[in-house]
């Protein structure tokens, strides 16, 4: 009997604390699979954010640092500048990256920092109990938008990938979904591509994962996946927004 699929080596054995059906676990596994397939477990350093994934350093069998809220791209910059031959990735939620850490992510992309960002967009703050995030949908009810997010009051959801695409230093930007097996396969392909871009030193790479938060959305896991597909995807289009190699290499 040949093994087809099993928990990747780079994913720690420790059970994850995420809520049942939360897609954090899928994304963690995809990262670990890419690390295993590229055989870089001994060369990769991850940075955990503040948020539900703050414990990510317990879930990967690699060196990791835990960063202050929003500052992972700055921490990653420090690491990559000291260790240019190593692989560095940050794992950040939408509160971490698109709210308190906006300056850090924009400037890391502007500088073309050669690390990869795994950006989890679940349209809410998870760990702290479901508050509105910059990526919360208009009309979406949260702990701090109990009547539904109102654009006139709290503006429109932030499309991070498109925003960063204005910066030439961003070499690879993609947005992926996890709401069915086909999308999960595409998500892994994009993640693998972002690590290859990093390997070739072509610049900054980020993959945005449209993710679920069953608990704070008040939905069953399957319904949450459907909500991503039906509500989030129209506003957050999936696909590779930029691949520098398809544009003839980095800008001079």
């Amino acid at each position, binding site marked *: 009997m040949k093994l087809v699929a099993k928990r990747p080596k780079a994913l720690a054995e420790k059970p994850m604390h995420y809520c049942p059906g939360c897609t954090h676990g899928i994304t963690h596994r995809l990262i670990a699979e890419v690390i295993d397939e590229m055989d870089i*477990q*001994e*060369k*990769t*350093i991850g*940075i*955990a954010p503040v948020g539900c994934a*703050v414990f990510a*350093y317990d879930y*990967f*069998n*690699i*060196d*990791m*640092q*835990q*960063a*202050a809220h929003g*500052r992972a791209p*700055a*921490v*990653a*910059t*420090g*690491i*990559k*500048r*000291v*260790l240019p031959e*190593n692989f560095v990735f940050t794992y950040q939620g939408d509160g971490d990256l698109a709210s308190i850490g906006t*300056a*850090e992510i*924009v*400037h890391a992309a502007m*500088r073309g920092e050669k690390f990869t960002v795994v950006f989890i967009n679940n349209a809410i703050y998870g760990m702290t109990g479901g508050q509105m995030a910059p990526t919360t949908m208009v009309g979406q009810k949260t702990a701090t938008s109990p009547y539904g997010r109102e654009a006139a009051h709290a503006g429109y959801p932030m499309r991070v990938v498109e925003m960063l695409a204005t910066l030439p230093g961003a070499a690879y930007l993609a947005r992926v979904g996890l709401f069915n097996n086909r999308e999960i396969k595409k998500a892994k392909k994009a993640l693998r591509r972002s690590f290859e871009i990093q390997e070739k030193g072509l610049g900054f790479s980020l993959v945005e994962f449209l993710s679920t938060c069953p608990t704070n959305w008040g939905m069953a896991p399957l319904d949450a996946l459907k909500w991503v597909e039906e509500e989030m995807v129209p506003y957050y289009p999936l696909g590779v927004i930029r691949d520098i190699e398809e544009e003839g290499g980095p800008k001079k």
Partner: protein
Amino acid sequence: MTEKILMKGNEAIAEAGIRVGCRYFFGYPITPQNELPAYMSRRLPEVQGTFLQAESEVAAINMVYGAAGAGGRVMTSSSSPGISLKQEGISYLAGSELPCVIVNITRGGPGLGGIQPAQSDYFQATRGGGHGDYYTPVLAPQSVQEAVDLTMDAFDIADKYRNPVLVLGDGMIGQMMEPVEFKKEITPDQLPEKKWATNGAAGRKPNIINSLRLQPEKLEELNLKLQEKYMAMKKAEVRYETDNIEDAEYILVAFGTTARIVKSAADMAREVGMKVGIIRPITLFPFPEDVIAKASEKARFILTVEMSLGQMVEDVRLSAKGRCPVYFQGRTGGVVPKPGEILDNLKRLAGGGK
């Protein structure tokens, strides 16, 4: 004897870091320390080092966090408002036990304040401006040469205790030009290996740089471990200088450039027959309590002089434990006290004034 060079404080401090193997600097523009990052941006590439201007002091201190965690000998500098922005990062550095050197070329505050020299960041520096029970050693030079020497030592103290170390200058130290020599020359390869660093788990268990301890007992355990370091610092790292305190009736206490002004005042006082001694703390943490405690047993009073409205004076009072009156005299906002002002006050106090 290494040759002496006339250098501006900010630049000399930068060169001092490079001479002891610092190869990573993350900074941000703010007067009066701008020459420091500018110098690093010229010099670091010459030694295969990395200079980076961050998008903010908040980003800069977190770059320091990453670089230190990756095992680099790393430095940053700023001035008062920028140092305030770095406080959360410094608390994380202490909590994650990461060595680095942070230079504060202090300016007048609060708020945007001014750009002239001041010492009104004493509390922030010595009590920890961030959250939690932590301290950082604070070294306060009074000359460009001492700024060089203390910066060099700061890296060793940081590595010895795996803790951020603060070099507290002021606008004068940063902007003055004085002759300096660089008495040490260390290259990164001569530095001991940092086994705890996150440089890729090759052939070892993964290293984790982290200050999160959700379980209270575990967090208390971490804190008690940090306290052991701070106690050790109090035993081994106290530095101060004294001048004529053996037979002194009056003791002046001042640090940094203010101590040079106090020296002029003391000389003038001795010329008119006043027995005046000086105690100059060089480490503000750990604070030189014992020498002040001893001096307070004999002195008629202690006069503390600062470029602030009274911060170190509280530590002097704690050290004196009420054995003698401890008076305060200070100018702030960037105003530098004059020797004459101090002499007049000294005479007034000696004559029974309060």
